């Protein structure tokens, strides 16, 4: 049997300790999750949709879980800062799998807004109401996350509240041993509320093997507006399996932009359930691969209500022996007339050994629709390269410029100006293979190339 058993065993041995450190709402879901994974196997290459990324293999090393909540590094805020110039944010941290919020980090936050641990007393009402109701436990890895998770973040924006500056969450791996972190986010944006969340995913120590299993649940009330930017700059020894589940009520507007700048073995899945009329959904993503990195994005936009629009844009630039995979699907149910759904996947292979696998899909059960998808895989345009060369730009420089230009429209989807500039800078540095240092930060995010 599969690697899931070692974690079931771990749970059976430690369930008291796990329960002791978690709130009642988290504990309430565990038994159900256990029954769902019993006898199941984690998705592997034989499973449709996981041809290029085996979750089974990701979980195969017998990772330890910080059951007893040890090793809390002190004062992360002082040693670590993902600074975005010209943009101030409300910052909080997840170190491995534990939530931290600096003392002064919630200054001026409108009342009623909660950014806190899933275990904190003030979170409990909301957590009890929404936690585990949006994520689909049919994926054994999601059920495993529900089974083992001990902490996570609740972002709660009450009705009508519009945050004037973005929230920022920094995920850090920092541990002297190989470690698996079960991360969980619950985001509730109520009616007419607006918020933006920037997640930065980092690995502090590139010597150890880490695995993050992340489940994000997003609930959007009527006419809510929410932007989620998820930037991964981890290490080549970091594996990541992230699943985002969102439910959109009518009139809501969701933007998700996932950027994989540095990774080891990454799989991101986005499942958007559009249940209310007149929703807007924008899913964007980019991956820059080099070395042996592997980046896999999968999207599933499920239209279940009328007059909605969704758009997807995913771009990859793959160098060296890196591999990329994209699997996007648009599903329009019979209850979703007047849907407009588009999807685009553009990939560039920059080396002989780079590999790209793509599978854009449409499943349409309604005739009142306009849907399309497009996918291309190719290389740099030779005539554009020649144009630049003939104007005295060195080949290397020209290539890098064209690659940056290629990624420009993914960055354009970002609705925060400061972040857009920062991203341009990060992408540029990434292509040049240079280290980037944020002000006051001890980690150089690009030394893992």
């Amino acid at each position, binding site marked *: 049997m599969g690697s899931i058993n070692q974690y079931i065993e771990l749970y059976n041995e430690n369930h008291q300790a796990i329960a002791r450190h978690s709130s009642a709402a988290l504990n309430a879901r565990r038994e159900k999750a256990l029954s769902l994974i019993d006898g199941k196997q984690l998705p592997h290459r034989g499973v*449709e949709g996981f041809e290029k990324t085996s979750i089974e293999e990701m979980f195969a090393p017998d990772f330890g879980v910080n059951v007893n909540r040890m090793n809390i590094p002190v004062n992360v805020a002082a040693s670590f800062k993902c600074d975005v110039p010209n943009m101030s944010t409300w910052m909080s941290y997840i170190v491995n799998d534990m939530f931290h919020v600096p003392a002064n980090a919630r200054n001026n936050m409108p009342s009623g807004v909660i950014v806190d641990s899933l275990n904190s007393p003030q979170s409990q009402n909301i957590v009890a109401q929404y936690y585990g109701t949006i994520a689909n436990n049919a994926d054994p890895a999601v059920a495993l996350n529900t089974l083992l998770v001990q902490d996570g973040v609740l972002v709660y924006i009450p009705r009508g509240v519009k945050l004037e500056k973005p929230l920022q969450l920094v995920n850090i791996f920092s541990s002297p041993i190989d470690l698996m972190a079960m991360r969980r986010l619950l985001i509730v944006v109520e009616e007419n509320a607006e918020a933006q969340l920037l997640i930065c995913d980092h690995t502090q120590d590139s010597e150890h093997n880490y695995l993050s299993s992340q489940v994000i649940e997003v609930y959007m009330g009527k006419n809510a507006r929410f932007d989620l930017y998820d930037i991964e700059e981890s290490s080549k020894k970091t594996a990541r399996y992230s699943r985002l589940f969102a439910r959109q009520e009518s009139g809501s507007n969701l933007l998700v932009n996932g950027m994989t700048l540095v990774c080891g073995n990454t799989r991101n899945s986005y499942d958007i359930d559009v249940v209310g009329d007149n929703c807007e959904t924008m899913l964007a993503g980019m991956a820059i691969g080099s070395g042996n990195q592997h980046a896999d994005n999968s999207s599933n936009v499920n239209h279940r209500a009328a007059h909605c629009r969704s758009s997807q844009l995913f771009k990859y630039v793959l160098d060296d022996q890196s591999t990329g995979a994209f699997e996007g699907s648009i599903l329009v149910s*019979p209850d979703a*007339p007047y849907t407009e759904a588009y999807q685009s996947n553009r*990939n560039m*292979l*920059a*080396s*002989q*050994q*780079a*590999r*790209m*696998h*793509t*599978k*854009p*899909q*449409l*499943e*349409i*059960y*309604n*005739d*009142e*629709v*306009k*849907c*399309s*998808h*497009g*996918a*291309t*895989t*190719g*290389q740099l345009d030779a005539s554009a390269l020649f144009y630049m060369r003939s104007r005295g730009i060195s080949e290397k420089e020209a290539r890098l410029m064209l690659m940056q230009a290629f990624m420009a429209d993914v960055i354009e989807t970002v609705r925060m100006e400061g972040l857009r500039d920062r991203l341009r800078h990060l992408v540029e540095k990434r292509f040049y293979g240079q280290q980037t240092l944020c002000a006051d930060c001890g980690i150089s995010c690009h030394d893992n190339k």
Partner: protein
Amino acid sequence: MDLKTGDDSSIKGNTRDKGEEDRGLINDVTSSEYKYGFVTDIDTDIIPKGINEDVVRLISQKKGEPEWLLEFRLKAFRHWLTLEMPQWAHLDIPTIDYQAISYYAAPRKKEGPKSLDDVDPELLDTFNKLGISLDEQKLLSGMAVDAVMDSVSVKTTHKEKLAELGVIFCSFSEAVKDYPDLVKRYLGSVVSYRDNFFAALNSAVFSDGSFVYIPKGVRCPMELSTYFRINASGTGQFERTLIVADDDAYVSYLEGCTAPMRDENQLHAAIVEIVVEDRAEVKYSTVQNWYAGDKDGNGGVYNFVTKRGLCRGDHSKLSWTQVETGSAITWKYPSCILAGEGSVGEFYSVAVTKNRQQADTGTKMIHTGRNTRSTIVSKGISAGYSQNSYRGLVKVAPNADGCRNYTQCDSLLLGPNCGAHTFPYIDVLNDTAVVEHEATTSKINEDQIFYCNQRGIPTEEAIGLIVNGYAKEVMNKLPMEFAVEAQKLLQITLEGSVG
């Protein structure tokens, strides 16, 4: 079953009472739905239902096959036993009882026809109804036809003329007898019996089919054509087509198929293998019009076909064109393996589904040679309660430099209850490849219908017009005679499917 009594236990298909009357009646009532739904009252040799090693041996024995072919069948059968029916397609396939099918049905021969006069007149009548030019007057129309009924080849025309050029066009069983070396060399070389469930089944029980060999440098002067017809009830059709185009050869091959209307489902599991050598070109066109079941989804043919061509030679070319209007369920992916340097693969398809039809069809373009090119144009049209899926693979191997693929798949939805789906798989393992895919799904453009209405064209006709325009890109790739037929077929198929 006892081998010796195998022949005796054959039953006659000639058991229908009032055959004439029934036929007339059925024709009258249903001709608008499916005009090929008649049953021909001819003496048929059917073996009992079920499949086991003895049945495989019996089929081989009935065909008087050599030992090596029996061995091939048995290997395939034993492999088939280890397989399960594939479930990955976007199809809802009812459980098929493989023991309830008779695996061999042949129009009973009276010492083999020597000329047209000796061929069963009922049979000729059938093919006349189908509009196949079997008889002398139509020899002038210049198309060589091999007609396969219940998977046994009944007549091949124009043989002598083709023989002058060295072109071999005959039934598979004749080829086994007359050209065993060629058959042995190419049989299973493109579609191995290990390929998939239906390929294994076909390899075990195939009864006949067509064999084409075009020698070096010969441009086949006429279109070769095969008509397939399932006639006997309770049988499956398992034919095999093998086409070999040697260096610098050219051939255009047409395939058409029909079946009677029956309440039960009939299984059609065929294999088509094509080998294209240096600078040769093969054009394979299909107009598939198997009985699709009635409007409630009763009956109809299950069309589970493996078609694949190997462009082995440099600068070889293989072009698939298909117009799919029939079958209750279609599971079919005509493919090209582009191994020769600079070889070209093409796939043009129109698939129409209505009522309760289901289709999961597309192509595979596997680029393993340098500078190979492929084009895929797929047009899906779904109406009624049907489900129509495009599923395709474009793969560029690591050493295949300079490959180019362009894929376009459009789906048109007529009515609120049908579904149109696209599942393309694109695997690029080489950085010099350029692979493009685009797909759109939408309903028929209301502005265009309005424009037609305004000029006095009723909606139904307008839709026919628009759909024909939409499918034109593919229809243009069909040979003349076929294009006319296909266009008519498209029109008939869409009749009554517009609310």
